[in-house]
């Protein structure tokens, strides 16, 4: 029986007559309409979604569509069969991208709704009109400023560095005794003295920015947000690989290196160079100068904080694994070596233990896990994977060494999630030809974390690699070949890449990715076991990490990085550490909460017995040795075979 299928595409209508049982994609092709099918018509990528506006068609699979999508009339063209007259709207591709149920994009940073500069910010600007001195009024400059602060700003006591005293006279006179002082208040204990940071001549516009920055020092990536403390807005976000990478990819190598002669100084300088470089870039973007920044709030794992401050870190790696300091006091920027205002405050957030640092306490704050009644799981995918399970009553945490693969490091063609990085990949099941999406849209330079996750998942589902990660050299494509490190798959031929070189994923890369995902999966499954809470009982799974601006949850589940649960339970939070630092930079109450979180967290040592090793080997497979933990992947595999 013949049916009429009417397509609307780019506002043009075209009709075609096809027999019962024709796939919508075939009908579209006959009608001369191109519907992209990056996965090769397997119903896997969801890019061929169309809207059935009239009539009905039989959907064989709606795996990549949400229930509400289906209710609205969406169908996957490659999985939908014509069984009567039907009208189809082919939406523009961008619209589809936004609809896909499994892509979790990091929400834009918004200023906390209740942020009130006056009440919550510790850095304050006060305009003062001092009585000019005279032969009668012989009060010294310092006392004169103190008096003005007391009377005009209600600040009874103020502390001041020698350096400020040395330079105090100039702004007072330049501004003809009208000055703007920048001070740091203690909002929790208002009776305590405030610190004077800077005195500017004259009046500074109340609405002009006061700059602060939130920094996350990751083992692999350092991120810096430049923030206007008055409005609370993030004005620039920058990130760069940590310069210490040249001396080792993981914290242990760094600690060992720092123990060598001159090592500590070198490591410190390397990370300072990275931070100061980022600071410069960020400031340039907003036409400010680094010395205009009055405060830096820093999160980072315990090793990174030790190395930044030049504190010996060797005790972190040696039993009984004790840090020199979990909660450093607030310091002056000049001492720390960060090129913000030399009197600016540097606040390193508190950590819990050697392998659970301020990055995770800050992360917990920004995830909101510690305020919820239901148990949630927070997974921070970094070089050191950190995991927190808990609710408002209890919090347990553990760390596992995942390696830098998901940040694009330690992988042959890996890169950070910046311009030119491949962030999404599909492989056609029949031709084994890839399709990919590049950040910024230009020629690809490499593959970032989210791209690697997608590539691994697609290679596995299409049989390019087997479940153990072996590249199938018998696969019928010239993209599979024997390389210097065993089998490899060519994602981009040199002719299409930025550098002119092939972009490949090698057996060694696959191993690194497998180990990284296995360590993380083992980490959270053992943590859940240890406290006796089944993973299914977790209400939400909050994912943090620097793989890119989004994560395709489905693919992360398919490779066994994330547990197989309803996709709606996942939230992708991006870099939670820098977000937590941002919250603490703005609001002293948030800063306090991080301290509370650090006190409440219970650290679980994973390597104490064999169970971690066992869970790890079990997870060192695609998606996992125990397929019953991954029912949705089993279903997807059954389909693709």
């Amino acid at each position, binding site marked *: 029986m013949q049916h009429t299928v009417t397509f609307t595409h780019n506002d043009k209508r075209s009709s075609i007559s096809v027999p019962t049982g024709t796939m919508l994609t075939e009908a579209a092709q006959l009608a001369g309409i191109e519907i992209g099918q990056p996965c090769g018509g397997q119903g896997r990528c969801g890019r061929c979604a169309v809207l059935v506006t009239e009539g009905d068609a039989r959907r064989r699979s709606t795996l990549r569509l949400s229930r509400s999508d289906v209710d609205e009339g969406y169908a996957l063209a490659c999985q939908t069969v014509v069984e009567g007259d039907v009208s189809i709207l082919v939406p523009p591709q961008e619209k589809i991208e936004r609809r896909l149920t499994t892509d979790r994009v990091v929400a834009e940073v918004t200023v906390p709704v209740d942020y009130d500069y006056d009440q919550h910010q510790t850095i304050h600007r006060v305009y003062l009109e001092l009585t000019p001195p005279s032969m009668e009024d012989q009060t010294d400059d310092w006392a004169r400023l103190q008096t003005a602060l007391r009377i005009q700003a209600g600040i009874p006591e103020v502390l001041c560095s020698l350096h400020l005293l040395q330079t105090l006279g100039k702004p007072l006179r330049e501004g003809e005794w009208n000055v703007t002082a920048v001070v740091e208040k203690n909002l929790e204990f208002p009776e305590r003295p405030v610190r004077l940071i800077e005195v500017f001549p004259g009046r500074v516009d109340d609405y002009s920015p006061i700059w602060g920055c939130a920094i996350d020092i990751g083992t692999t990536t350092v991120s810096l947000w430049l923030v206007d403390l008055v409005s609370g807005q993030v004005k620039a976000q920058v990130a760069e690989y940590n310069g210490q990478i040249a001396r080792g990819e993981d914290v242990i190598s760094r600690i060992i290196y720092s123990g060598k002669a001159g090592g500590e100084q070198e490591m410190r300088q390397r990370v300072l160079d990275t931070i100061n470089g980022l600071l410069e870039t960020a400031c340039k973007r907003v036409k400010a100068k680094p010395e205009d920044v009055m405060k830096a709030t820093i999160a980072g794992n315990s090793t990174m904080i030790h190395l930044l401050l030049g504190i010996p870190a060797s005790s972190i790696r040696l*039993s009984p694994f004790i840090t020199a300091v979990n909660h450093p006091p607030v310091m002056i920027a000049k001492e720390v070596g960060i090129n913000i205002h030399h009197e600016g405050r540097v606040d390193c957030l508190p950590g819990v233990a050697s392998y659970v640092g301020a990055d995770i306490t800050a992360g917990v704050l920004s995830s909101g896990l510690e305020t919820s009644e239901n148990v949630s799981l927070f997974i921070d995918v970094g070089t050191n994977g950190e995991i927190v399970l808990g609710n408002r009553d*209890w919090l347990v945490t553990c760390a596992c060494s995942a390696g830098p693969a998901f940040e694009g490091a330690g992988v042959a063609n890996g890169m950070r999630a910046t311009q030119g990085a491949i962030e999404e990949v599909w492989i056609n099941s029949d031709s084994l030809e890839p399709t990919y999406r590049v950040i910024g849209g230009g020629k690809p330079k490499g593959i970032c974390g989210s791209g690697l996750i997608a590539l691994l998942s697609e290679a596995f589902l299409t049989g390019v690699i087997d479940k153990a990660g072996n590249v199938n050299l018998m696969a019928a494509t010239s993209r599979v070949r024997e390389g210097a490190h065993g089998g490899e798959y060519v994602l981009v031929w040199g002719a299409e890449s930025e550098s002119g070189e092939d972009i490949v994923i090698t057996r060694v890369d696959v191993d690194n990715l497998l180990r990284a995902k296995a360590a993380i999966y083992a980490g959270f499954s053992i943590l859940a076991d240890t406290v*006796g809470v089944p993973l299914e009982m977790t209400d939400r799974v909050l994912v943090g990490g620097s793989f890119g601006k989004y994560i395709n949850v489905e693919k992360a589940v398919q490779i066994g990085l994330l547990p197989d649960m309803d996709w709606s339970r996942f939230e992708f939070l991006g870099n939670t550490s820098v977000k937590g630092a941002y919250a603490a930079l703005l609001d002293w109450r948030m800063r306090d909460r991080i301290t509370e979180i650090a006190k409440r967290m219970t650290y679980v040592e994973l390597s104490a017995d064999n169970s971690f090793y066992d869970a790890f080997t079990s997870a060192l497979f695609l998606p996992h040795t125990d397929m019953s933990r991954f029912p949705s992947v089993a279903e997807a595999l059954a389909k693709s075979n």
Partner: protein
Amino acid sequence: MALSGIQIYKMLPQTNCKECGFPTCLAFAMKLAAKQVELSACPYVSDASKKQLAESAAPPIRLVTLKAGTEVKAGNEVVMFRHEKTFYNKPGVFIRVKASDADAAKKVAAADAYKVNYVGMDFVIDGFAVEADGGDFVGAVKAVRDATKRPLILIAKDVALLDSALSLLAGESALIYSADASNYEAFADVAKKHKASLVVTGDSLDALADLTQKIQAKGVEDIVLDLGGKNLSEWLQRSTQARRLAIKSNFRALGYPVIFFAGQNGAAKEPVYAAQAISKYAGFVVLDTFTPELAYALLVLRENIYTDPQKPIQVQPGIYEINSPKPESPVLITTNFSITYFAVANEVEGSGLPAWLVVCDAEGMSVLTAWAAGKFDAERIAKAIKSFNVADKVSKKRVVLPGHVAVLSGELEAELPDWEIRVGPREAVDLPGFMKQALN
């Protein structure tokens, strides 16, 4: 039933006061769940919680201790399979002699003196059983007691005989064999009088459970079960059933250690019978034959089965010969974590290539873990090379470092100035290829 960390946490004060020595109440609760700390460390726990926690902590199989000059413990087990946690108290291996045997004391003395070393541990026979079979039982017990200081099992049907024999063993905790439905009252009395433990026999688990309850009512707590069973199959089934009832059903009447006589069907079957008893839940194994070769094999089996599977097993540090190495064969380095050792040894062995494998003492950790924890560094490697006299065995002073610790090569060069340091592959799988290509 065992409680999870979170369940225990809910019974604790949740104040994170740190007085127990742990940073949070939850950390303490998890230690309690893992039985690594005593509840008494918490000064603020409520009485109600205390009671509830004590109940959950009581072992499903009673601990029975035999004591003389030495001690043997049985019971306190919590799992059916060793991988679930571990088996705790190794079954005591006893040798049985008969009172009528004129050489009884001599045989005991010989077995008593037996000592065999297995990877640094000395194994001995744990004790002896003396059986009344006519003749001078009390005299035999006295002679045996003079020949050994180890705990004794006394086997007799006549309670009066046992009473006299036990009088010789003042201050000890012996085990007497055995009470049945017909005589349990008298046996219980004598066990109580001499603070002895008591074996009960019965032809079914029902009969045994009935007896243990009656004996317990008479004030004897230290009971051992003889499950009967006339062949391997019967015994395996009964032993499994009794253990399941105790552990899974929390059936207290059978929550006692089990004794097994391995020689019941003759000396030829004794090794296999004893081996099954060791693997399958016996608390005491009684042998009729003592030979060093059998004792050694059984004691090693016992050690292996009762090794804590949660603890990574270590290999003895030293230099291992693989495929009959010659002086020019390469020297490979690894750590003494057994899985690491086996991975390396198996790969090299499988390749057929000869090599010297130097196993460093890295406290039983894998290469990366040990390196991270500072247990596998240039100093330790150099020490191993020197203390195992590797230089005397080889003509080419060249060592191959695991690729994961390539960073150590510089320091190792400094530690071993006359050696060539080569960096091998990261994974054991790649060793044969590396040896073929890079080490010629």
